[in-house]
C-alpha cells in the first residue's frame, strides 16, 4: 500500500527524477538480532546525474543500491525508480547492474556474455548482434567478442561486464564497486573511460565505492554514508566541471571536495 502511494507521489514529482527515496529503512533479521542496514535514507537523484555512494563497510551503500534494483525490499519508507516501484522498474528493464566481480560465464565468449541479457529478454538474433557490437565498441573491446573471459585481463573483463549491463540500453546504471578488485593504475584508466562513457551515453549512474579520489573524480553528487545504523551523513554537489582530465585531481577544487568527503566520513565515525 505504501509503495503504491509512493508511485503516485513521484509521478507528481516530475520527469527529472530517476530515483526518489523517502525515509527508507531496512532492517535485517539475523541470528544475533536485528541489524539496521538503512535508517531514514532520503535522496533524490535526477536524470543524467553521476552519484557516488561512499562510506566504510556496513554503511549500507551496497544495500541501498540493491534496494534500488529490487534485490532487497525496504522495511519502511518509500522508494521509486523512474516513477515506479523498484520491482516494476526492473520488469521495465530500467537499469543495468554491474557487480564487484565481472561474473562472466566461463563457457560463453565475450560476445555471448554480452548477449546474455538480450537472449533472456527475447531480442531477435540480428538485434542481439547489432547491440553486442555497439556496446563492445563503447567499452573499447571491439574484436574481442570471440574471446573467452579467461583470455582477458581483469580490467577488460570488468569492461565486458559493463558492456553487458549497457546492452539492453537501460537509462540507469547501477555499479557496486566495479573496480574494487583492480589495481590502481587499471582503475584510473577505467575511471577515465567510464567518465567519457557517461558523457556519451547520458546515463544516470549510481556508483558504490570506498575510494575518495574515485568518488570525487567521477561524481556530480557524492553521498557520504556511515554505519551502525547505515545512514546518509552528507550529500555533496560537486563544483567540478563536466570535462575532467585525470590531472584535475591535483586542482584546489578537487582537493576541497575530497576534504569535505573525508570530514563527512570522520563525522560519521565520531557519533557511531
Amino acid at each position, binding site marked *: 500500500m505504501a509503495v503504491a502511494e509512493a508511485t503516485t507521489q513521484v509521478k507528481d514529482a516530475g520527469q527529472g527524477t530517476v530515483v526518489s527515496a523517502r525515509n527508507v529503512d531496512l532492517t535485517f533479521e539475523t541470528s544475533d538480532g536485528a541489524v539496521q542496514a538503512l535508517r531514514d535514507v532520503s535522496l533524490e537523484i535526477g536524470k543524467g546525474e553521476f552519484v557516488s555512494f561512499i562510506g566504510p563497510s556496513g554503511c549500507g551503500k551496497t544495500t541501498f543500491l540493491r534496494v534500488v534494483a529490487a534485490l532487497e525490499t525496504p522495511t519502511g519508507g518509500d522508494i521509486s525508480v523512474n516513477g515506479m516501484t523498484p520491482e516494476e522498474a526492473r520488469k521495465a528493464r530500467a537499469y*543495468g547492474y554491474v557487480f564487484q566481480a565481472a561474473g562472466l560465464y566461463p563457457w560463453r565468449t565475450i560476445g555471448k556474455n554480452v548477449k546474455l541479457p538480450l537472449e*533472456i529478454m527475447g531480442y531477435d538474433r540480428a538485434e542481439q548482434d547489432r547491440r553486442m557490437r555497439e556496446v563492445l565498441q563503447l567499452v573499447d573491446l571491439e574484436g574481442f567478442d570471440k574471446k573467452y573471459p579467461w583470455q582477458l585481463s581483469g580490467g577488460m573483463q570488468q569492461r565486458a561486464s559493463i558492456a553487458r549491463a549497457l546492452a539492453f540500453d537501460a537509462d540507469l546504471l547501477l555499479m557496486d564497486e566495479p573496480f574494487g*578488485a583492480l589495481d590502481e593504475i587499471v582503475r584510473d584508466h577505467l575511471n577515465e573511460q567510464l567518465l567519457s562513457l557517461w558523457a556519451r551515453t547520458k546515463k544516470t549512474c549510481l556508483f558504490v565505492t570506498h575510494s575518495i579520489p574515485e568518488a570525487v573524480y567521477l561524481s556530480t553528487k557524492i553521498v557520504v554514508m556511515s554505519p551502525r545504523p547505515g545512514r546518509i551523513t552528507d550529500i555533496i554537489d560537486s563544483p567540478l566541471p563536466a570535462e575532467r582530465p585525470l590531472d584535475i585531481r591535483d586542482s584546489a577544487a578537487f582537493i576541497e571536495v575530497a576534504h569535505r568527503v573525508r570530514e563527512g566520513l570522520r563525522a560519521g565515525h565520531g557519533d557511531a
Partner: protein
Amino acid sequence: MSAPIAAPGAGAGRSGRVGLWLRGRGAAAGPVLAVVLAIFALWYVGTVALNAQWTLDQAARADREVGFAELVADTMAQDRPMLPAPHQVAVELYDTVIAQEITSRRSLVYHAWVTLSATLAGFGFGTVLGILLAVGIVHNRAMDMSVMPWAIASQTIPILAIAPMIIVVLNSIGIQGIVPKAIISAYLSFFPVVVGMVSGLRSPGAMQMDLLRTYSASRGQVFWKLRLPASIPYLFASLKVGIAASLVGAIVGELPTGAVQGLGARLLSGSYYGQTVQIWSALLMAAVCAALLVGAIGAVQRAVLRRMGMDR
C-alpha cells in the same frame, strides 16, 4: 571474488591439470614402469609364498624331497593355485581372448560384452534418473527434503544383499536377462550423479543468481543459461564414479542367479570349481573394461569442455 564462478572454474582447472598430466606422461614413464615392475615382483613373491604349502604337501604325500628351484617352479605351474602367477593369467587371457571366436561361449570378450551391455544400459538409465532427481531436488524444497535421505539410505544397503531380491522379484513377474542386471547397475550409478549434479546445479553463487534476477529471468532461463552449463564439470566427475559403479553392479547382478554368461558368471563358475586362473583373468578383464569406460568418459569430458571453452 576474482574468479567469475568459483566452482566451474575449479572444474576447468582440474581438467587443465589432467591435460598437464597427459603432456607430462612421457617424463613420468620411468616411475610408472618401476611401479608396474614392483607390482609384478610382489605378485610373483606372493605366488611362491602362497602356493608353496600345496607343493610341499604333495611332495610329503609322495614321500619325496623338493629342492628350492623345483619348489619355485612348481608353485608357478599348479592347476588350481591359491594365487596364479601372472604368466598363467596371461596364458589364460590369450586362450580366452585371442584364441577364441568372440561369439564363442568360451571367449572372455563375449562374456565381457554381456556384462558391458548391462553396464551401459544401467549406466544410461542411472544417469538419466540421477540428473532428473537432481533437477527436482534443486528446484523443489519438498523433493530436497524427501528424496535425498532415501537416496543416501539406498546406498547404505550392501548391494550383495539387495541384488538377489531385485532379481527374484523381477523374475517372479517374468523379467529376466539384461533388465535385472541393468537395474542393479542403475541402482549403484544414479547416486554419484545425483550428488554431483546437485552440487553442480547449486554451484552458481549469490552474485550470479542476483545478476539473472536483475534481468527478471524465469526459472527455466536460470536453469538452461546458468545452472546446467555450470554443472557440466561436476557431471563428468560423477559419471566417472558412476560408470565404475555400474560395472560392479552388473557383475554383482550376475552372481545370485547362477548366470552362465558374463564376467560375473566366470567369477562364479571359477569359484565353484576352484579355477583361480579363470577368476583372475575375469577380474583383469573387468579391470580393463572399467579403465576403458572411465577413459571413454574422460575423452568425452575433454571434448565437451573444449567445445564449451572451459578446457584451456
